[in-house]
């Protein structure tokens, strides 16, 4: 502790401070996402920059608009709405109209966070709520995937991005399927190296598995996330698809394909670990992770959609208060029942 003040310092407990505050944790997550964000700009060019900026703009606008006038600076300064916008943007297809991205960010903060009472009160992950709203509202635009920029360089913008507010996307012939879509509907497997380094079709942030893992390791070293959640999700997915592989190796995806395809890494590392919407107890974290992993595989393999990470996490978010309630540790010195 600093001893510069010559006067007697009077403190109430706690006297030891951890140094970790909400703005700091948020900034760490933003930093951990930086490589994947830069990669998305590398793959999708100016379109990625514009979409991410629109999402963040929408999120910040909602936070500013609905915040109490006196608390406005405070609620914007912790950067949590910027993080929500960035995470939402990373889950969106690169050819999405910018006005939809803005709307998603706005709805995510307004209906996903502010309406529950602000940071720390929400039941569902705001970024995923914004995405669920967009997917239910604009199903065609949200499932039109364009391949990464091959020629035309950084300054090329997908024509879909520039649709006027409330107007339709002009569907271009360039659209193609994601690795999960190819797997599900055409039984075509994308090579693993492509999945790891980002040479695939998909949303902005899900194309490069390695960079997402890198950010995850950084967050784990900084103690910003509960490692149990991503580990249990990934292990569950691996075990689940290995078991499926025993039955029919050709029909079901291989374990590594399951882990590196789609938004699983993005969801498992950055969204399921949201401290607000995941259980606080260690036992609860395991239950939460296993539940998410099972739901992801169930939706992907047996459901009608190619990707299920978003709904899996949202469903487990809804179960979080219940999990927390039943995994309370025994109070020291009391009997078996802590209640």
């Amino acid at each position, binding site marked *: 502790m600093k001893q510069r003040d010559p006067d007697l310092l009077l403190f109430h407990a706690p006297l030891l401070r951890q140094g970790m505050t909400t703005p700091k944790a948020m900034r760490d997550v933003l930093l951990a996402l930086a490589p994947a964000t830069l990669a998305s700009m590398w793959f999708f060019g100016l379109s990625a920059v514009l979409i991410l900026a629109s999402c963040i703009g929408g999120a910040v606008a909602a936070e500013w608009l609905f915040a109490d006038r006196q608390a406005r600076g405070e609620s914007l300064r912790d950067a949590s709405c910027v993080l929500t916008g960035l995470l939402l943007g990373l889950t969106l297809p690169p050819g999405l*109209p910018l006005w939809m991205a803005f709307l998603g960010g706005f709805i995510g903060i307004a*209906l996903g966070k502010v*309406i529950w009472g602000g940071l720390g009160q929400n039941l569902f992950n705001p970024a995923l709520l914004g995405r669920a*709203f967009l997917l*239910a*509202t*604009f*199903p065609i*635009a949200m499932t039109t995937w364009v391949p990464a920029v091959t020629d035309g360089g950084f300054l090329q913008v997908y024509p879909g991005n520039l*649709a006027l507010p*409330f*107007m*339709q*996307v002009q569907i271009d012939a360039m659209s193609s399927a994601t690795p999960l879509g190819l797997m599900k509907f055409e039984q075509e497997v994308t090579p693993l190296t492509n999945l790891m380094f980002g040479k695939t079709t998909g949303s902005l942030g899900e194309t490069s598995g390695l960079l997402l893992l890198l950010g995850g390791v950084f967050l784990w070293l900084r103690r910003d996330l509960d490692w149990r959640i991503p580990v249990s999700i990934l292990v569950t997915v691996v075990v689940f698809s290995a078991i499926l592989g025993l039955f029919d190796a050709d029909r079901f995806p291989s374990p590594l394909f399951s882990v590196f395809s789609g938004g699983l890494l993005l969801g498992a590392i950055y969204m399921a670990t949201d401290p607000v919407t995941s259980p606080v107890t260690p036992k609860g974290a395991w239950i939460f992770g296993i539940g998410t992993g099972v739901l992801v595989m169930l939706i992907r393999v047996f459901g009608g959609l190619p990707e299920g990470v978003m709904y899996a996490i949202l469903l487990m978010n809804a179960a979080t208060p219940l999990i927390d309630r039943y995994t309370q540790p025994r109070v020291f010195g009391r009997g078996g029942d802590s209640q």
Partner: protein
Amino acid sequence: MKNNQSYEEFIKGVWRDNPVFAQVLGMCPMLAVTNSAVNAVAMGMATFFVLVGSSFLVSSFRNWIPKQVRISCFIIIIATFVTIADYTLLALVPKVHKELGAFIPLIVANCLILGRQEAFASRYPTRLAVMDAVGMATGFLLALFSLGAVREILGDGALFGVKLFGANFEPWVIMILPPGGFLTLGVILLFFNWFKFKKDEFLEDVAEAERSGH
């Protein structure tokens, strides 16, 4: 004096005690049939007819209806008017009737209507009972219309079937689907309560200023 009281009963239902926005009654038709403005208005008119008619009859017969069996008597009267409304809609606008489907017979179970008979029409003179019913039904109609209009404009780019934004409009599919009803109703309730809160705050400020002035 008497006219003032009728007016009071009328305006209470339209705004201050609005059946949907203040009392949160009649949610079933509110959420189910407001996916377009036409459906919403048709449902509102049918409910209007049933509520005003049954309030008139219940209030006229209030001294003859035995207390012990009053609910069944109310239901019989309401069901009569619902049947009339059902066949009238079928004869006049068969397309709308088909879209509203089971929700027209279900008007009989609308808690707003039974609630008004029990709480008002069976206790007050006919003139006041009718004014109360007209007010409540107008409030319900306005609420249905505002929800239906928002959902049709966003979900279809149209109002009463007239396209507003041209052919390139991107429909908000969710607004036509059931979740859109919950979302829109929630947002409208939010604004209604916010407005009320602001008004109360303002009135308190005025009262405070008056007290300190004296």
